[in-house]
């Protein structure tokens, strides 16, 4: 999980001060990912240096307000759509999708699909290994273990897709409250 990208995603909802960012980060990751405030400010300085966020006004104290730049929004969007370079542990995938829910303008089904495609491609690669090693039970067992694990992730993406779709069809629901509750429970289960 990238703290840098998570903070950037939180700022895409509107300007915030450092302390508020820390509180929201911890709240949305189910209070299982403590973050010290020093880490928050170091990350914010780097984001500012890279032109992804800007500070509002000249105040240099803890009340300094940060807002995301256009380059920052682009960065968040790219990060959400890019599959991790290693097979994602489930909690990272879950957090990515939860973050995507809160970022304005993100096509959440498209984010889900980019992860789904990558996982199916990995499954195809594993299945090819199994096809080639038709008489090698050890390979089959190792490959099966990976296939079942990847399959579970895809099933989770499918159910997330269905839930997002159901919520989109029920516009009267207060999604912000529900998301935050779901976040807390889900993260506790998977970690």
């Amino acid at each position: 999980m990238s703290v840098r990208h998570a903070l950037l995603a939180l700022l895409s909802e509107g300007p915030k001060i450092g302390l508020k960012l820390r509180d929201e980060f911890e709240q949305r990751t189910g209070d299982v990912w403590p973050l010290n405030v020093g880490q928050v400010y170091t990350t914010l300085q780097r984001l500012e240096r890279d032109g992804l966020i800007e500070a509002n006004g000249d105040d240099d104290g803890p009340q300094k307000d940060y807002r995301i730049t256009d380059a920052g929004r682009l960065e968040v969007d790219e990060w959400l759509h890019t599959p991790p370079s290693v097979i994602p542990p489930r909690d990272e995938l879950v957090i990515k999708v939860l973050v995507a829910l809160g970022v304005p303008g993100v096509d959440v089904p498209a984010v889900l699909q980019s992860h789904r495609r990558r996982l199916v491609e990995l499954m195809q690669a594993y299945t090819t290994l199994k096809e080639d090693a038709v008489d090698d039970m050890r390979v089959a067992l190792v490959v099966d273990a990976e296939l079942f694990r990847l399959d579970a992730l895809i099933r989770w993406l499918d159910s997330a897709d269905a839930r997002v779709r159901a919520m989109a069809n029920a516009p009267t629901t207060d999604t912000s409250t529900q998301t935050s509750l779901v976040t807390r429970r889900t993260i506790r289960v998977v970690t």
Partner: protein
Amino acid sequence: MQGIELEGVSKTFGADEGEVHALRDVSLTISAGELVAVMGASGSGKSTLLTIAGSLEEPTNGTVRIHGRDVSSMSKNERARLRRQSIGYVFQDLNLLAGLTAAENVSLPLELDGMGLKEARRTAMAALERMGMSERADRFPDQLSGGERQRVAIARAVVGQRDVLLADEPTGALDSVNGEAVMRILRAACQDGVAGVVVTHDAQLASWAHRVIFLRDGRIVDQTVPPAGVESLLTGDGQP
């Protein structure tokens, strides 16, 4: 070309307010030798795509070509002959005839197509042998296990000169090892020059296909590009 081509295919059921767009502007080519899996949620249009590709249903718009021939330009008889001679179907409920043995189930379509009884039986036995079912050829469907019945249905689908294979959830309720055996057979059949389409919601089954298409609300929204360099997967040397 040999294989199936769908170009700008749409399918609409009902009219006015009850109108349902099962497929929207789908273009897809499945070559001889290729097995393509179609994945998508319930109602995404998977089964409609299969029935249209197999000329069991006509598209509202667009063109379906099988082996380069536009299906809509064929007469009713020509289309029936195409279905009998070129296209094999495997549906979830298999549709094996309970009063016929495995061998008779497989040879029936050949006999209906005018092949002599002896040759039809010989061809059917060869197809069953490829599925590892020659020992069970004289059994009736209710004397066979689920996996065996599935193999008979696939033998019937590929028997003779059929070179298009269409399967809708072909492993039914089989356990994963038997399901894998069925997918191995389908993949091997395609590698022998058959153009195959398998519709499934199961990613493990879909991963046996050379290419996976994702349908959403009747549209193709994505497809896989299988990664190269699979050897590194087991050693952990890197990602494909």
